């Protein structure tokens, strides 16, 4: 303990440990959904480590990239395939845990005061993570990589006035080319992960100020949590968390070893060819719902585009759309129904996103897109009703 004393004198570590861990209390009335924040961090760590190892053989050059991934890393480097599969599965599972983490926040009203900043920084993390996944997907320079980048960058063309020039600027060429690959590489490997780390730090700091929300959505003071209604983050909460993590890792590595194919599209094993679009292209599963909103307004391209952008960002405004005084969905019967319709609709859109956008599917996509927005638009109305109820009940 001498070393600790020495360190404490210089860095006040004892105080830090108390504030951050042993005297930071988590409510007792939370469930396993509250372990997903730490799971997100775990997956992020896995992505960083596996990323560093594939980076050691990856070559960011339009002529070399495809072979450096599909030959060197996959066939020549000992266990190279393991790190690539881990990285690809990790990216996919990242969005699964993120979606659960976000849905938890929506259901239990964790986005409401005093946690707006937690929500907003969280949302920024979601956007950054999407950008990281998108830029990373181009790097293997396969057909899916190429055409995903080509179509998504083309979206910017529709911005009034500057659109066409902006697209050329983003690509550094008239089409997606070597210049695009190298800049996406820089963003994916350095810039975006750096921002992710910074915003994760702010996010965690922001959770620590009001403390975690709970199933009942009724705020607990630190004193209440210290005396019976809570548990210390370290070691009690984390002990449970380690259990959840180990179960999660079994699932995760089961996917890496036996089911990795879902994260590696077969079309992407053909090298990029800018003169030939594959006959059926679609984004990775985690973007399908938003993609379906884009296609859902099949009769107007501009409407589709506006709806697409809106669908990606509208949830960021939840704290101002839902102003009901009741926080947790547990005590909001109508909200509960709306919430589950919304989740079902999201799954529905995800499935539709992979089907051809013709005939009945086109109309179903349109209907699904409307339901998506209806959830958010119903919230201000529901808030009004609930406000009256609460006022009347007192």
């Amino acid at each position, binding site marked *: 303990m001498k070393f600790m004393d020495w360190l404490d004198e210089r860095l006040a570590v004892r105080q830090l440990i108390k504030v951050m861990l042993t005297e930071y209390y988590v409510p007792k009335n939370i469930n396993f959904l509250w372990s997903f924040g730490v799971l997100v961090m775990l997956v992020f760590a896995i992505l960083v480590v596996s990323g560093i190892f594939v980076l050691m053989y990856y070559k960011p050059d339009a002529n070399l990239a495809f072979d450096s991934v599909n030959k060197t890393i996959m066939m020549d480097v000992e266990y190279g395939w393991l790190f690539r599969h881990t990285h690809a599965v990790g990216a996919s599972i990242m969005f699964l845990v993120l979606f659960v983490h976000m849905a938890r926040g929506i259901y239990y009203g964790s986005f409401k005061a005093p946690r707006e900043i937690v929500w907003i920084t969280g949302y920024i993390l979601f956007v950054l993570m999407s950008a990281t996944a998108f830029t990373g997907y181009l790097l293997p320079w396969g057909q899916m990589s190429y055409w995903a980048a080509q179509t998504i960058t083309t979206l910017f063309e529709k911005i009034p006035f500057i659109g066409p020039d902006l697209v050329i*600027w983003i690509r*550094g060429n*008239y089409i997606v*080319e070597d*210049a695009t690959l190298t*800049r996406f590489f820089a963003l994916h490997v350095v810039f975006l992960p750096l921002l992710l780390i910074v915003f994760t730090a702010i996010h965690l700091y922001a959770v620590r100020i009001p403390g975690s929300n709970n199933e009942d959505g009724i705020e607990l003071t630190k004193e209440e949590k210290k005396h019976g209604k809570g548990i210390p983050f370290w070691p009690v909460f984390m002990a449970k968390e380690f259990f959840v993590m180990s179960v999660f890792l079994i699932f995760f590595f089961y996917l890496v070893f036996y089911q990795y194919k879902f994260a590696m599209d077969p079309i992407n094993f053909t090298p990029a060819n*800018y003169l030939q*679009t594959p006959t059926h292209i679609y984004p990775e599963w985690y973007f399908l719902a938003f993609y379906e909103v884009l296609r859902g307004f099949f009769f107007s391209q501009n409407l589709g585009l506006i709806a697409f952008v809106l669908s990606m960002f509208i949830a960021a405004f939840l704290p101002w759309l839902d102003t009901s005084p009741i926080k947790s969905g547990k005590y909001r019967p109508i909200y509960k129904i709306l919430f589950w319709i919304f989740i079902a609709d999201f799954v529905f859109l995800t499935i539709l996103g992979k089907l051809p*956008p013709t005939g009945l599917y086109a109309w179903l996509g349109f209907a699904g897109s409307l339901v998506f927005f209806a959830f958010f638009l119903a919230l201000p109305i529901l808030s009004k009703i609930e406000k009256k109820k609460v006022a009347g009940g007192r």
Partner: protein
Amino acid sequence: MAEEKVSRRDFLLYAMGAWAAVGVGGVLYGMYKTWEPLPEVKAQATVTFDISTVQPGEIKVANWRGKPVFILRRTPDMTQCKDRSIKDEYTVVLGICTHLGCIPNWEADKKIWHCPCHGGEYDACGKNIFGPPPRPLDVPPFKIEGNNIVLGEEGPEYKQMKEKGLTA
């Protein structure tokens, strides 16, 4: 005296702020410029293509600035058009879907282009006839020189089309 000191400090702060803004502006501008296409990309020359080599009913693809240009020599059983036609029988269009930039495929049996991405369709003149594409396939800048077509240069025929708003 005290007041004067404060105002002098304010002045310094503003001056420093302005100076920093100049610096930040300069840095951002420099960053912005690094993302522009390289000279070798910008200078990508025009492409010349001998269209008499295209057989009736055949379609050839020229590569201009990395973009495919479809050169179709129409046959009488295909959709006909006067305004978007070159030498009365050629359709010359950028092979990039006006929806989201995929490359449509020519379906010889139906005599249409079909876009694999979201099911858009164009007739033999490049006009959008089905699906999300908002407008016909673009006509690239061209100039006719005998049997040759020069892509990337604006000849009189192209300028005429452009004036009528038919090119994009």
